[in-house]
């Protein structure tokens, strides 16, 4: 189970948190929980737990960890003087992340699960949606993500 889902989980959590260490910690925790109560249908279960943990972790991080994270982010930034291309890529990543953060938990979850190859049935199971609602959720989530990203880009251009 670990070998099968670990990589995909970490990828989803990385997209969700933007922090690789945190993503790996959370993935580890997901598996610890799976150990405690092995799910019969692991895939949606694991990813649902991962999304919940990421949400809780995000709240906590906002409270406690902000300074530390800022500090390490600063260090990372000063550590390697970046090329223009690199800066641009980083700005785009930041904008996408900001856009994703504006979505509702449900919309974001649906997008992230879809990106991991989930079918509508699995997305419905993981997010507790009616199977018929997944298409609508995804339609809205995609549109909002794109629109939020465009707004972020515009904001970035304006501030420069």
């Amino acid at each position, binding site marked *: *189970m*670990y070998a*099968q889902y670990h*990589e*995909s989980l970490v*990828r989803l959590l*990385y997209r969700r948190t*933007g922090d*690789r260490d945190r993503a*790996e910690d959370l993935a*580890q925790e997901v598996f*610890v*929980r*799976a*150990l*405690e*109560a*092995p*799910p*019969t*249908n692991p*895939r949606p*279960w694991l990813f649902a737990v991962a999304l919940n943990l990421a949400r809780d972790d995000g709240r906590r991080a906002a409270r406690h960890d902000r300074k*530390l994270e800022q500090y390490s982010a600063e*260090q*990372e930034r000063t*550590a390697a003087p970046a090329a223009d291309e690199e800066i641009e890529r980083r700005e*785009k*990543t930041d904008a996408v*992340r900001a856009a*994703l953060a504006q979505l509702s938990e449900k919309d974001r979850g649906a*997008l*992230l699960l*879809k*990106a*991991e*190859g*989930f*079918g*509508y*049935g*699995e997305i419905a*199971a*993981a997010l*507790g949606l009616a*199977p018929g*609602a*997944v*298409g*609508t*959720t*995804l*339609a*809205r*989530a*995609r*549109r909002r*993500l*794109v629109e939020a*990203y465009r707004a972020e880009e515009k904001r970035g251009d304006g501030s420069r």
Partner: protein
Amino acid sequence: MAHVDDGTLNALLDGELDDAEAAEVRAHLAACAECAARFQDAQRFLDEAAELLGVLAPAAPEARPADVRPAEPPARPQPGPAGVAPLSPVAPAGPAAPGEPPRRVSKTAREIAVDLDGATHKSPAIAPNFPRAGEPLPAPDPSFSGREVLPLNRPAYHRPDWATLAWAASVVLALGVGYLANEVKHGRTTVASGGEAAVSASDSVPAQATQRATATRAARQPTVAKALGSLAGSTLGPRPAAARGPKPPRQAVADAMQLAAAPAEAAGIAMNAPAAELAAARAAPSPAAAAPGAGGVLGARAQRRAAAPTFRLTNVDEAAAHFAGTLRTVEGLALESVKIGPGTLVPGAVPTQDVVRLAYTEPSGRRLQLDQQRLPQARDASREARARAVPPALGLGYGDTLVTTGPAGEARVRWLDRSGLWMSLMGNLPADSLRALLARIR
């Protein structure tokens, strides 16, 4: 047909409609300009959203081996019979691998059209046994083995077999009986627990206490040997115990003492730490007095303990200052004490650096001990540099979790925290329960 909603358009684009539904929608799109335009929009949003999410894919440095991703979706390993439905081939899993341009998650309208002309694939619905939030969790899956879960670089902990446990238990029992017999013989009725610490606690003058403890031990040895010999002969049937073999009884006792001392030493940093520390503190003023009377292994041990530095009580703020502010605690448990002591007192820790020890009591009354130590810092904060800065003697790397069980039944989990701390959680409870507590360490 009425206009098609965005959800259905997305389902079409994602290949989630069956043939008949898809054909119906396609027919409508061909006839209705409004819906066709919305279909184009949905298509654009889908492609762009997929591209944006591709941007968030983890970056290159820790590239995954290419063979991890299945070459073809149908080849992907599937979980058990009641498990998840196979992936639809029209929705390949995963975003871009490092180095490649972002992989498109969904298909273009043209590709869908091709699918519609040929065979359209659809994901079967998944089994409806997935628990929602609040529902009780399903029964454990017997095919699931926990062993594979944690990526241990070290050999996994294996349960000792019962024969070994029984043997160890009888050795401990024999020692206890010998000790009791000796106590009775000398007319003392106080039975104290745990080596020098206990004996010295029953005396008032520390130097005498240490001496007497040593002397008592030395005098006790033959008795213990006898008791051990007879017990070993009578109770240890199947397993040829070390104590019964060709070794002379005295040697056997020395071995047995060593064995029995192991939990005591582990406990010195663990469960009855206060007693041990008390004894060490008392004996400290007079190590010289302890030395002459102390012969052999026991004397040397007493001396070592007497000279050793100890943990001192402190408070959370001071301890946190020690770690530049990142002190880890166990959420939801009552903190009993905070101490700082040298790394030499804690097995597995870096001996040259101080350890901060937090003592907790679990709701069930069992004691827990969270030790932490700041590792030598790498100059830059990159992951590789941090990994290199970990002393190899720890036998741990980032991401490892080392679970051990001590001879006294106490479990211990060691790991490296991503903020550069060496961590150790120890307690008198099953390893699994202990590991579950890791989730509460903040």
